[in-house]
């Protein structure tokens, strides 16, 4: 918070462009990376920028961007959730099971969102009121959800999903619905965080919890609410994930929590809390999906994807720390 404000103030006299860049520097860098990547890989392998591949990239990864919105809020408030991947796996399975069991489609969409909010609110209560560090609570939750899911379902495939349930395959003006969800939710969340008192209090808690308390912010209640909102986004992400194909495998998508956290952190959400935007995390999710896809088009083995992911987080984190030391 303080770093961001200081940067903005210093460049206030140097015009709108410079000011915008100072606030959204990380976002512009990622946007530039995305453009460069698409142009460069597109020149080498033109099929990379074909509508089919672009659709694959966006439809297959929009749910990561959606989950990263909630994760960004959690990290900005100074916490973390390593169980989000397992949670999305569980919620997707619940949603799919309801859909094939003959429940109304709207119920199959709504139930995972509500269950998601209940689970993350519970995490929030343990973190805020019982004061267990979020990493421990969510590590425990990770194994509870993951183990619970596999022992109940045995990793079976859910098939015969009703066609009107597959919301991720709907199109509006020719553009797949996950892209609309991603854009709309990012815009909503960005405005919510920038212009509402609650949004500002997320930054305040992450910047300095004690100061936020003294300033009259109910830290515990706000923290629980942040986790609940995170569950809301995880629920929507789970529905998008569940409906993108004709089948759902009732297991936990491997490394999903890491991909979501990567998107948040690479998108400029400071690991120390207090700064970052959801626009950045959505752009980072797109960048990461594009990198994954380009590895295939450049004939690089997909087995290197995680190493690239790790290097990306590490590089961003180190850059973040270096910038902090220079400014502070």
């Amino acid at each position, binding site marked *: 918070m303080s770093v961001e404000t200081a940067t903005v103030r210093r460049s206030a006299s140097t015009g709108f462009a410079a000011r915008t860049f100072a606030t959204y520097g990380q976002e512009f860098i990622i946007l530039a990376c995305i453009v460069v990547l698409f142009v460069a890989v597109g020149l080498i392998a033109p099929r990379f920028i074909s509508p089919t591949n672009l659709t694959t990239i966006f439809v297959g990864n929009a749910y990561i961007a959606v989950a990263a919105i909630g994760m960004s809020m959690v990290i900005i408030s100074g916490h*973390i959730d*390593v169980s989000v991947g397992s949670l999305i796996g569980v919620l997707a399975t619940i949603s799919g099971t309801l859909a094939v069991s003959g429940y109304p489609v709207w119920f199959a969409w709504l139930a995972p969102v509500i269950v998601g909010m209940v689970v993350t609110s519970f995490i929030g209560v*343990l973190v805020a009121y*019982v*004061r*267990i*560090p979020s*990493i*421990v*609570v969510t*590590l*425990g*939750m*990770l*194994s*509870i959800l*993951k*183990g*619970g899911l*596999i*022992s109940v379902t045995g990793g079976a495939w859910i098939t015969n999903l009703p066609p009107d349930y597959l919301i991720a395959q709907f199109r509006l003006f020719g553009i797949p619905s996950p892209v609309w969800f991603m854009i709309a939710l990012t815009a909503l969340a960005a405005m919510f965080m920038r212009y509402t008192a609650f949004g500002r209090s997320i930054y305040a808690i992450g910047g300095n919890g004690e100061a936020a308390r003294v300033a009259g912010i109910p830290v515990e209640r706000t923290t629980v609410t942040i986790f609940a909102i995170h569950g809301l986004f995880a629920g929507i992400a789970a529905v998008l994930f569940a409906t993108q194909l004709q089948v759902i495998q009732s297991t936990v998508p491997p*490394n999903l929590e*890491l991909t979501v*956290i*990567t998107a948040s*952190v690479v998108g400029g959400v400071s*690991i*120390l809390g207090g700064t970052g935007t959801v626009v950045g995390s959505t752009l980072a999710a797109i960048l990461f999906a594009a990198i994954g896809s380009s590895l295939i088009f450049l004939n690089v*083995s997909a*087995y*290197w*994807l*995680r*190493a*690239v*992911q*790790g*290097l990306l*987080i*590490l590089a961003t*984190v*180190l850059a973040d*720390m*270096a910038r902090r*030391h220079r400014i502070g």
Partner: protein
Amino acid sequence: MTLSLRSFMRHEAVLGILLVLVLFVLAQQSDKFFTTANILNQGRLMTEIGLIALPMTFVIITGGIDLSVGSILGLCAILLGVFWQNLGLPLPAAMALAVCVGALAGLVNGLIITRFKVPPLIATLATLALYRGLAEGISQARSVRGYPEWFFVLGQGEVLGVPTQLWILIVFAIGAAAILGLTTFGRATYAVGANETAARFSGINVDRTKLLIYTASGLVSGIAAVIFVSRVSTTRSDMGTGVELDVITAVVLGGTSIFGGRGTIIGTVVGLILVQALKNGLALSGVKGDGTIVVIGVVLIFAILASNLFSRNGDG
């Protein structure tokens, strides 16, 4: 100090009673549970986690955490196979090199944490992805098999009727307990965790202490990798996935405070035995492997919950 020591003894006492209770209940469930063969076999199975839990106790006492241990284990296991089979090195040299890589991986963690002041949670979350990614990229999902017979002594053999690796675990545990309890380095570890600034002002080289501890964590993960490969006779890049959870559960269950400054090796060993007894007992009672993961998650959360309540009572 006396206050926290008293509340800590209370935690260990509670843990001890819990362990006896669990053992008693599990023994009722299955008559296979309390046989020598089963107990020794459990010792074999818990060695890798037990070894990594020792330096993890130091890490958590300093107020840090190391989530990358499972990935380091996977990376070292893959490199052991690659050094031996693809580069044609003699197996002992490959083993030594793999352990060195583990130490190097730990050193990198330590440097990121001390030089760049990156919070350990995020630093090791990043290297968790990086090291596992390297393991996957190097192995390309190929496994290495066909190790010579003598190599299996480490993970499948016995010395004086006790599994070889259990001896290694016992020696390491005694060594770790001595270092933590009796040396200035051990005192420095507690001091760093209790109050880093105060430790710095009282002349402790905080960065060097942390660097050594994270390097040791990587080194021991490398040793655990060699034992793991020897035990299961094969090398795969997904080895050690999720080990960090078991390790952290054992350490935290053993009374080490996740906020730093408190903890003992004895506690970790008791926590370790408790986790393994639960796993084994549940498996013998017919609970499937994935069900036991749920129990470990629940136990982890409740252990911290109880520990928080105790320390609150201790402070009041």
